[in-house]
């Protein structure tokens, strides 16, 4: 897959009177890291499901998903509690050797946990396993659905490092859904802003930063500030998510 092309005209869930997604059209080059930022409830998860090929009932077309290898990381780690870490990884990649599993776990800082059950690991550790699981299938496309939400800053930072290290090998085209603009600026090369539901694309912003950076770096704060002063209407939409539906229209 050289390119991801998304062309959605509308998406409406069965039995609902209004559209969840409006017009959403964008393309990504292989290896791009794109963040999709918008208020909670904007339909961002629905968008990821459509791109993953899990939801074929929409108006438009997506040039990925079916047929290509897609790694998906959810908001919650979603490990199977009755399988140990090794068996959780083998669920998606059955022919993994013990050595490959130990090697992968060591790379995400979890050496020696192959025989542990997920409930014995901390939330941050479970998320590392979930990230590793997504990379073990050698994904061409990686979809991240707010996987770093509700984590304390050091844990989130360490997970950013894990993500960067894993991405360096496989270089999947990556879409990160988040409502945290600082996180988007810290991780992605490009940020797509979407409106409240029905989600439409309202700004395609190229991040003027390069190299590894953290959420609280001065450069990230500067980029955040600049973006907000250039597009004050976005600030309104993000800050008032849930309370002021008119702000982004």
């Amino acid at each position, binding site marked *: 897959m050289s390119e991801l092309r998304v062309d959605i005209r509308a998406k409406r869930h069965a039995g609902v009177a209004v559209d969840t997604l409006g017009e959403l059209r964008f393309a990504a080059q292989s290896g791009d890291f794109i963040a999709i930022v918008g208020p909670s409830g904007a339909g961002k998860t629905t968008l990821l499901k459509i791109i*993953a090929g*899990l939801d074929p009932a929409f108006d438009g077309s997506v040039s990925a998903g079916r047929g290509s290898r897609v790694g998906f990381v959810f908001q919650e780690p*979603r490990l199977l509690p009755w399988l140990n870490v090794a*068996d959780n990884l083998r*669920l998606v990649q059955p022919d993994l050797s013990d050595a490959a599993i130990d090697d992968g776990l060591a790379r995400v800082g979890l050496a020696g946990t192959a025989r542990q059950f997920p409930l014995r690991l901390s939330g941050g550790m479970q998320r590392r396993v979930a990230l590793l699981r997504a990379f073990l*299938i050698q994904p061409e496309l990686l979809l991240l659905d707010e996987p770093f939400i509700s984590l304390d800053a050091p844990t989130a930072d360490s997970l950013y490092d894990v993500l960067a290290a894993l991405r360096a090998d496989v270089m999947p085209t990556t879409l990160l859904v988040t409502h945290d603009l600082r996180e988007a600026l810290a991780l992605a090369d490009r940020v797509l802003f979407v409106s409240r539901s029905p989600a439409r694309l309202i700004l395609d912003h190229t991040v003027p930063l390069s190299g590894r950076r953290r959420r609280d770096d001065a450069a990230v704060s500067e980029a955040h500030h600049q973006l907000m002063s250039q597009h004050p209407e976005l600030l309104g939409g993000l800050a008032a998510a849930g309370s002021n539906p008119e702000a982004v229209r």
Partner: protein
Amino acid sequence: MPQARAGLPAGVIRSGSLLVLLLIWQLVALRVHDPLLPAPTAVLASLFHHLTAGELLHHLGMTLLRVLAAFVIAMTVGVAVGIWMGRSRLANQLLDSLLVLMLNLPALVAAILCFIWIGLNETAAVIAVALNKIPTVITNIREGARALDPQLLQVGEVYRVPRLTVLRRIVLPQLYPYIMASARSGLALIWKIVLVIELLGRSDGIGFQLGTYFQFFDLTSILAYTAAFAAVVFVIEALLLRPLDRRLNGWRS
């Protein structure tokens, strides 16, 4: 797991109520002194006699085989249909009335129909017993299948996990509590129905023997046979079901 009280091992607590019952029974029997209420010691002696000199082991074995066959059939069919009805609206609509009918079909009617239509043979006996248990297994498993976690099923979908692996790794582990509950209540129900069916249409097995001893009013032998299979039930519970339970729930601790 509830903790045992200080000083008393769990085994003593588990068997305490039984020991009290036996003690009361022994005292009453000694006082009444009537052949229609044999004392536990007399039953024990009779049990020993039937074990060594009589045919108890043969009849117990036959009954156990029928229980096992009916249990395996009922659990397999019940779990399969239960998952299907729990996951498919169409299947549920198609089979629901039939399920209600089967749930309320008296064991005696199923037995008579099977013996008449299939013949007075082993197949008819086992099918009659299984027919009684299948609907209750379906009802239990259907509840479990409806409560499957959609988030975990989605993991299987996203990563294109093969159907059989989804069943083995994602679906069945969520159904184990329901399957174990069905197995426990199922074993109890099947024992009881097998005896009735042996009484009706077989010439061996514990049910057949109980019928014979009933004709002679030989209460001591009836109680000895009862004690024999009660003991087997306890052994199955202790050596099979409880260890299985612990194994399947190991990840929780």
